[in-house]
């Protein structure tokens, strides 16, 4: 028993370091997070629903409106990396018939017309969530 409780200074350091590694990687909260949230929920947590990369909104439109043909033209008005690479089966709709606008505000209308040659009057609004929109031609 005495032997069991005998720890030299070095072994103390080792165990402290091991628990630091546990805490450094947030092991227990990670396990809880994976257990309690689905992959999509965790992705939305990291990449936002309708902010930043807006993974959540694009995922919502692709699953609910474009489930058979995951083809759309996505424009994000925030300076962030392209979110479409997060969807392995996503295809760019060069005809711009399915249009997803992310972080879009009225002042961006001019940019939409000038840079992308898109007139929203030609489209029908299919879905809206805060500053994210899905239009169909």
């Amino acid at each position, binding site marked *: 028993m005495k032997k069991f409780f005998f720890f030299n200074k070095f072994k103390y350091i080792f165990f402290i*370091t091991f628990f630091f590694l546990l805490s450094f990687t947030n092991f227990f909260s990670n396990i809880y997070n994976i257990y309690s949230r689905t992959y999509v929920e965790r992705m939305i947590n990291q990449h936002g629903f309708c902010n930043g990369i807006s993974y959540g909104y694009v995922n919502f439109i692709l699953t609910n409106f474009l489930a058979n043909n995951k083809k759309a033209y996505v424009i994000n008005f925030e300076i962030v990396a392209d*979110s479409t690479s997060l969807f392995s089966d996503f295809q760019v709709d060069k005809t711009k018939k399915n249009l997803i606008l992310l972080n879009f505000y009225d002042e961006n209308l001019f940019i939409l017309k000038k840079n992308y040659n898109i007139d929203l009057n030609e489209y029908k609004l299919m879905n809206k969530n805060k500053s994210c929109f899905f239009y169909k031609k």
Partner: protein
Amino acid sequence: MIEILQIFVQLLIFIFITYFPFNSLTFPKILIHYKSDFFYFFFNIIFLSNILLFTSFFSINFYYLFGFIVFLYFLIFIFYFKEIFHKICERNNLLIKLAFIFSNLFLFFEIASNLTIGWDGLSIWLNKANNFYNGNNYFDLNSSYPHLGSYMWAFFWKNSFLQLEYLGRLFIVYVYLVTIFLFSSLLTGHKNFAKLLVIFFLIFFSYVKDLHGYQDILIFSILSALSILFILPYLNKKLKKNYNYFFFLILSINLLPWIKNECVFYTIFIILLLLIDNNLSNLQKFLLLIVGLLNISFQIFIVKIYFQIQLFQTPLNIEVLFANFLNLKELIYRIFYITIYIFHSFFKYPIVLIGFSSFLIYLIYKQKIKLQNFYIIFFLLNMSFIYFTYITTVSPIIWHLQTSIKRLMFQTSGFYLVLLMLLINKKKIKIS
């Protein structure tokens, strides 16, 4: 719960697929000089990566490829089942083995929970991985960026049960941890507790959470492992002029240029270092030079001639180059900021500071650690490369430094960590 199980399965797959075909059971006479199992893991990673590099140029179905590899390895496993079972059960180095498994799980769960992918990861590497995941090959990419990391990502992503993107990325972390544990095998005459302390210390300071989806950690791992291969003949005289050691060396060098653009330069540096290595025969040096040059030329040929695009992101502009070198004020300005940002990278990624400190301490005790000047030459070449890149850049210098220099410093920092192990062995740095 199913995702947690899948992560365990993924780790088992990685361990299984990287324990064969090269290990002490299958090649006992050839591989007897490598004392640690982590060498076998690393050699098999290199071997597998070379197979994947080859198949990336063709449209080979990932399921068939994976099935074929696993089937072959399974036959070897069945053949050596008894010996493998004994090896698993033996208590020798049990602590290190358990620490390896737990470290993998800790980091795998961290990635599964924190699914962020950085800007380059999303816009470059995941795009490429998507291309391979959807059954296309290298020639469908039409990009100047190399592709090996993305191909491996897609390979393990496709061959996971849940087919979630991050499951493929876990392999990069696995490679990284094999390298970190490889360092511990260099520590001779130390107890396992001491080795684990060093391992945890290295993981603390080198595992960078904001590089998820990037290739830098893979470069860090391969350069670290290469630096270990460099000194093996000094630690074990039986490896001198040994052909199996050379075989793995050449396979590692073969991979480098296909990970990221700057690795073309690292490959050239490594080849230059090996050309002055006394442990290699002239024939080996000749073979090395030929393989290295053919490999780089092949890559340049595809990008420049086949894809007809620039080899590097920003082409070398001769006018800018001369203007920057001849304009003393601009030259001093750039050198000043490059130096400042190099120091900044020490704080951003502490492993860079640890690597450089090890290098500086090594310089003090150079006479007592009898190595050829590999690390000094590599340091000079690497620093020249960094200064030259940023002096000649056509992009705004501050922006360019802010976005990339820390990662360049991180990539090569692992190369000097081997010196830390040698210093610990020589008791110039005491850990217990």
